[in-house]
Structures are given as C-alpha cells and as structure tokens.
C-alpha cells in the first residue's frame, strides 16, 4: 500500500465530479455541466492509466491494494485491489465514460447536469465493483450502480421507458438479492470474513457449493444476461438513450461475467464443474437461437441488443470449458465487445439523432449522404460480425478454439456465430447504408460533425488495434487466468 491510491481515485474522482456536475446547475448554463463532466471523465481516465502502466504482469496476486476498516462490527473492510482481469475492465469503464460524455454532448438538452452526473457516478460505482475485494463492498457497489442506470433509462429514454426501467431494475435486483444471502452465508462459514480472497480458500461441501453457485448463477446470469433471463435487455436497450445503451452494453453486461470469474468459479469450483453442462447448453442456446432472433429484428437497437446477448453467450461458454484459451478468449471477447457494442450503439445513436427512428425500413442509401459515417459504421459492423483483423475476431477465435479442444461439437456450435453474426449485422448494414436513397428524410441527412467523428474514430482505432495486436491485453491477464484455473481445478470438498 504505497504511493497514490489510484483505485480509490478511479472510483471517487468520477463520483465527486458527478456531484459537482449536479450542483453546477440548471439547463440555462448547461455547458458548465458538460465541461465539468468532461473534465472529470478525463480525470477518471487519467487516474486509471497508471493502473495499467504500473501493472506487474508476472504475478497473479492483487495489485494496488488498499485496505481500511469500514464497518468493523461486521468485519467489513474497504479493500480494493485489481488483478490482471479486473484492471482491464476498470480501464475500459473509465474510457467508455469519456465516450459517453462526448456522445451525449449536444444530444441531451434536457436536465444536462443530471444526465452527466448520473453517468459519472455510475462510472465510479462500476470501477468500485471491479476493484472491490470485500464481498459487502462489492455488493454495495453492484446494487448502487442500478440507481443511476434506472434514472438514465427512465428520464431520457424512449416512449416505453418507464416499463423498461422498472423491468431492468427489478430483474437485476431479483438476482442480486439472492447473492446477498450467499454472501452472508459465506460470512458465517468463513468464521466472520467478508474478504473475497479468503473465500477462495474456503472448503465447502458439495450441497453448500451447489446452493451458493445457484445463488451466484441467478444473480450473474440476469446481469450477463444468459438465456432465458435475457428478456430485460432488449427492452432496456431500445428505450435507453444512446449513452445508456453504450454503458449498458459495454460495461454493465460485463459485471455479470466478471462476477462468475471472481465469485462463482473460484468459490464453488466443484459445483461449477457439476453445473458446467447446463451453462454450456444455455450459452449455446444464446449463441445460436438468439443469433437467429437477431436476424429477424426490424429495430436496429434491438438487433444489436440481441447480438450482445449472443456474444455474451460466447463469453459464458468460454468460462465453463475450463481451459486457458477459453477463459482468456472470453475476457478478450468482453473487452472487444465493450468497444464494438459501444461503437454500434453510438453509430445507431448518430442516425437516431438525425432521423428519430430506429426502424431499419426507414433507412436506405445512407452512404450517399453520409460517406464518412458509412465508412466507420462499416468497420464496426465488420467487427461485430467477427471479421479477422478486428477485435471481434480475436476473442471469438480463441473461445472457438478452446471449445473445439473441449468437445468438437460444442466448438462447432459456437463457431456458427461467425456465420450468424455476419448475417444479421451485415444484412442490417446493407439495408441501412447501401442501396438507393430511400426517402426524402434520408436525402436530407448531414454527415457526422467533428465531435461525432472524433469519438467514433477513437473507437475505430481501439477496435483495429485490438484486432491486429491483442498482446497487450492478453499479456496482462495471463498470470491471473492461470491462477484462477488452478483454483477451479482443485476440488474443495
């Protein structure tokens, strides 16, 4: 615990920034709130970068650890730390926050201060989730992060926003409440510790493991979301404003998957093995069935939402085949999906801001009026369908390879996503962008302005860089994934 507490800064800088933005006032001087938000989003990113540059890739132990007593009465401590897995998500989250603030710059005209504040506070809370090493601290951040997103969907969302917001909130809350019981139970079993790393060492009987695993499964499966508890996601995505969709897809979905890695697998390894066939089946259903569902969507946002579910099915599949390729591939896929889905939703947002329609049939021939946009959108669509040299390919390839090693037919099923993904994404792209100009609304479209170009281009660079040279990402996680697999391989009965 030496030097600057970067993790605490990564959590509290955005939260303080959010409160300041909130205090900075009304819509009359909205630009103040915007600049305050941008400043703190950039500051949040700035304090996250040392986490990566100062990261020691040779060890699997927690780094940048901070520990203070919080509620000594229940032995709850404010313990933060990152390993090779979580550090990537902290970075991703801080980065996406900047994108979201920029993406909402002029688009949001009502209650700007509250909008920016909600995103900044959420960003801080999510950094807290990824770096918490205390069960209660994790839970507190996990639940608290629902509030800003609930408000974001409900206040700035589309026509059916109230339904979507409440559905989102209750679904995720339902999952996490069972987790609370599991956490309390582990507290008892471990003789009064809420430290997650202590729990990793805990010996548990098979019955207990199964119950704990199921509690975690319900909680994280909703968040991922896995088939069949995925139905809140399309609603939430469709109704959320662009920024909300970006955060939801890029970050919030990763929380569930991260939860599997941090809790379910290492705490209940035997139960994880026992339930693996179930998870693999559900994941394959998500990959294939949801892929087909995506194919028939007429709403662009819904299509991308279903494609997210399908991609996340890939992630859970990667986790539960228990080999390094699978898990590393799944993590790469999560990071990549963070960029790609953010870019897809941002692109759709760009179109929606101009046309106020998400229906594919309202578009056609956009390339004729928005060439710069069409080019960038093309890249993202390619990445979404997993084309080589984009980030989407790396993760999918690794997971598919891992799956083939595990069982040929599972690998085969998983690989169909490459076809399905290409089919629904590129078909949508074709219908929206190519062809003759569909109607006079399309003809009046203006190409992206500098602000839009900048944030889309930055995302494009990330997508390409990760596709061509993923080593900086995999290098960081390597030691931690091996450590995790060691935990999973050893029986705790």
């Amino acid at each position, binding site marked *: 615990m030496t030097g600057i507490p970067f993790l605490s800064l990564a959590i509290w800088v955005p939260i303080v920034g959010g409160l300041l933005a909130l205090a900075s006032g009304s819509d009359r001087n909205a630009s103040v709130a915007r600049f305050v938000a941008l400043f703190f989003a950039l500051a949040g990113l700035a304090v996250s970068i040392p986490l990566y540059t100062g990261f020691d890739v040779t060890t699997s132990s927690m780094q940048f650890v901070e520990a203070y007593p919080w509620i000594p009465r229940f032995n709850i401590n404010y313990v933060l730390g990152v390993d090779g897995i979580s550090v990537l998500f902290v970075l991703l989250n801080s980065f996406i926050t900047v994108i979201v603030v920029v993406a909402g710059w002029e688009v949001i005209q009502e209650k700007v201060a509250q909008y920016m504040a909600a995103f900044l506070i959420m960003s801080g809370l999510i950094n807290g989730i990824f770096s918490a090493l205390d069960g209660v601290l994790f839970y507190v951040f996990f639940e608290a992060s629902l*509030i800003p997103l609930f408000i974001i969907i409900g206040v700035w969302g589309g026509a059916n926003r*109230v339904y979507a917001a409440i559905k989102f909130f*209750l679904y995720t809350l339902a999952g996490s409440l069972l987790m609370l019981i599991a956490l309390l139970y582990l507290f008892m079993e471990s003789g009064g510790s809420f430290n997650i790393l202590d729990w990793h060492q805990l010996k548990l009987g098979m019955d207990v493991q199964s119950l704990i695993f199921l509690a975690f499964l319900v909680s994280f499966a909703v968040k991922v979301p896995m088939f069949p508890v995925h139905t809140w996601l399309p609603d939430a995505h469709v109704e959320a404003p662009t920024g909300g969709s970006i955060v939801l897809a890029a970050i919030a979905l990763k929380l569930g998957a991260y939860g599997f890695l941090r809790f379910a697998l290492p705490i209940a390894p035997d139960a994880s093995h026992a339930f693996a066939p179930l998870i693999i089946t559900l994941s394959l259903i998500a990959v294939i069935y949801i892929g087909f569902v995506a194919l028939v969507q007429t709403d662009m946002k819904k299509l991308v939402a279903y494609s997210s579910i399908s991609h996340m099915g890939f992630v859970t599949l990667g986790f539960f085949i228990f080999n390094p390729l699978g898990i590393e591939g799944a993590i790469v896929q999560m990071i990549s999906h963070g960029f790609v889905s953010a870019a897809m939703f941002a692109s759709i947002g760009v179109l929606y801001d101009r046309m106020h329609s998400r229906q594919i049939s309202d578009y056609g021939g956009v390339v004729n009026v928005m060439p710069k946009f069409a080019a960038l959108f093309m890249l993202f669509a390619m990445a979404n369908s997993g084309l080589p040299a984009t980030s989407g390919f790396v993760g999918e390839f690794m997971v598919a390879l891992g799956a083939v090693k595990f069982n040929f037919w599972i690998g085969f099923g998983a690989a169909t996503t490459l076809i399905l993904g290409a089919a629904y994404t590129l078909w949508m792209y074709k219908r929206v962008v190519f062809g003759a100009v569909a109607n006079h609304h399309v003809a009046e479209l203006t190409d992206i302005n500098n602000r839009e170009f900048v944030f889309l281009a930055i995302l494009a660079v990330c997508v390409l860089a990760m596709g061509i040279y993923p080593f900086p990402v995999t290098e960081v996680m390597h030691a931690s994934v091996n450590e995790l697999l060691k935990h999973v391989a050893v029986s705790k009965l």
Partner: protein
Amino acid sequence: MSFVILLAGTFSKQPRNVAYALSQLTLIGAAAITLFTMDGQVSFTFSNMYVDDLMGDFLKLVVYFAVAIALLYSRSYMNDRKIETTEYYVLAIFATLGMMVMITANHFLTIYLGLELLSLALYAMVALQRDSARATEAAMKYFVLGALASGLLLYGISMLYGAAGTLEISGVAQAIYQQAGNKTVLLFGLVFVVAGLAFKLGVVPFHMWIPDVYQGAPTSITLFIASAPKLAAFAMAMRLLVNGLFEFAEQWQSMLMVLAVLSIVLGNLAAIAQSNLKRMLGYSGISHMGFMLLGLVSGVVGGDRHFALNAYSSAMFYVVSYVLMSLASFGVLLLLSRAGFEAEALDDFKGLNKRNSWFAGVMAMVMFSMAGIPFFVGFFAKFSVLQAVVAAGYIWVAILAVVMSLIGAFYYLRVVKIMFFDEPLDATPISAPADMRALLSLNGIAIAVLGLAPQALMSLCAYSLLGSL
C-alpha cells in the same frame, strides 16, 4: 429523572407559538438531563418501578430527537389547517412522557401505565381534526382496537402475576428461572402479552388499524405515530420479552417468527395495491416492523444465547433507521401539502423532479433506502438483520425476506418513477418554512451519510444493549 420537566410542558396553555417553543424546550431540556445523567450504570428507582440503563437512555434520546423533528415538520401544516395546535403540542408531550415511562419501566404495570398514557394521547391526536369524518373514524377504530389490545396485554400480565407472584420485571425473570409458578399459566400469559405487543408494533394479524389510522389521521399526526412510538414499542418488547421472559425465548421467538413472516408478506403485497401514499407507507411500515422482529427472533438458537447481542442490536439499529426514514418520508408529504391541499395521493408526486429537484432527490433517497438499496441506511439495516437471521440458521426465512423486499422495491420504485419520469400535474412552487426545509434536507443527508458510515450507530446500539442482557 426526566418526568418533571415533561409535565411542565402541559401547563403552557398559551398561544400556539409559545406552546411550540415550550415543547421544543422541554424536549431539549429532557434530552440534556438524560445525557448528563447517563453513567452506564444500571440503577433502579421509585421502589424498583423504573430502571435506568444505557439502552433506556439511548432510546430516550432518539425519541426526544424524533419527537422534536416531528413537531418541527408538522408546525406549519397544523397552523395552516387551524387544528387545535396548543392541544397538539400538549398531547405530543404527554405521549412522549408515556414513551419515557415505557422505555424505563421495570414493572409490568409501569409498562402498562406508559402504554396507556401514550395510546390515549395518540387517540386524541388522531381525532384532533374534529370536523373531518375520516379522522374521527380513524380515531374511533384506533381507540376500540387499541383498548382491546390493552385488555389483552393486561390479561396476560395478570396471568403472569398469578404464576410468578410478582410484577417486577426482574422478579418475574427470577421466578421463571427458579421454575417457580405454573409453566402453562406463564405461557398462557406470554401469548397475551405477545398479542398486545404485536398490536402496538402493528404487525400482522394485529395490523388492521394501521392503514386506516395512517390514512385518516392528519399527515402530521401520522408522522408522529409512525416515528417515535415504534421506538417505544421496541423498548417494550425488549423489556417484556428479553428482560422479563428471556427464559421463554424459544417460545416467544416461534410466535414472533410467524408474526414477522406474515407481516413481511402481507405488508409488501398490500402496499403494491395502494394509490394513497400514506396508506402505502402504512403497509410498508407493517413490513418494516416484521423485518425488525426477524432480528428479535434470531437471538437464541437451541438454548445458545451467544447470538442475542448481535441479533437485538441489529433489530434496534433497524428500528432507529426506520424511524429516520419514516420521518423523512412523511416530512416530504407535509412539505408538499399546503393550506387547503393535502399531498397524499401518489399522483401528487408527479414530476416532482421538475418542480423541485432537491426534494425529489431527498424523497428518492428515502425510497431507495426503504427498499434496501445501498448506499443508504436502509440497506445496512436490512443487512444487519439478515446477517443475524442467517447466523441463527434461518436461511429460508432470509430468502423469503429478500424475495419480499424485491416486491417492496417495486412500490418504492413506483414513487421514484412518478417523481422523476412523469410530467407534473401541478406547478405550484413549494412553500414551506426555511427551518423545515433545512431539517428535511439534513434528514435526507443523514440517511445517506449513515448509509456510508453506519459503524458508529451500529456500535452505539450494540453498546447500549450490553448492560441490559
């Protein structure tokens, strides 16, 4: 003791401002005396009728505090409605005196005395708005049912007297410990005592009065009923069950368990259907009291009393946090009401965020806190009770409780939804005196701050209980 000063408050038959000032002074004075005489010793006084211990002192301080806040919140509301305010303050002080007696009682009859003093004052307060049919009806219901409950309690007490031969709480405990007296009679008495207690706490199936009284009474009175008396009822439970009948812990635990589970289920389910916010908060209060009881039932497991301190202090923490949240929620209702207009329907909250985003934020915090979402104090209240329940091995009860909190979250969320997502129906700016705004803001902030740093209050609860177990 603090009773003398409290009585002084009743002689202030002056115009209402004087009455208000005097009652606040009385409360502050009483609080100061309690604070300065607090020495951590357990001492008995008035021929063992009263006990002075840390739990009592702590609860008394919280009660003074809650009553003072309640009076401040209700002042402009009562003035606007020209309800007999002098009497209101006098009754409030009498009710406070009743609560003090209950909290410090060491004798079954003293408890009964305090309870009656509190209840009679409350009946009268509910009926203060004489020309309101609803208020009168509510008062009548409250009185009839309350009298019945008092009768039950008294009957139970007489049974205990018959079996134990004494009514001093420590004496009864000793008699049971020495296995003197007929166990059947004692248990029979216990059942009636629990029933009387359950009525005062307002838990199912003795909850019938709550929704009607909460809705019918003027909002300021509801605020009063929903805050400090809950603390007194908790104190009564501690005195009767823990200090007096601890030997029967297993028996009353199983009774309270049924009451608690029923309250949590019914309170949450019924609250969904309400369109009147006062009624909704009434049902939600039922479920909160059920949750608090869960803390009380986790104290003794299979004769093992190690869990008691943890369990009872979590229940105490729960009730204190509930009072804080309850004050804030009714405070916002009073804030929105003005002369000739009662804010009590859910629709009155529509678009509050557009009218006044700060108080919409405060109300949202209260709602999230009641739903048990972190970082608010309500989360840690639920957390500590659940932790006690899991420690006692009642995993399935804990699961049921969280499932019901999920249902609870729905109707709290609905309030947030109405405030933030809907368009306002009514654009009147909020007019409320500055002291009330300031205090309400502080109340909201306290809910958030205690959610970030609950340790101090938790330890206070645990520490103050140490001497009484």
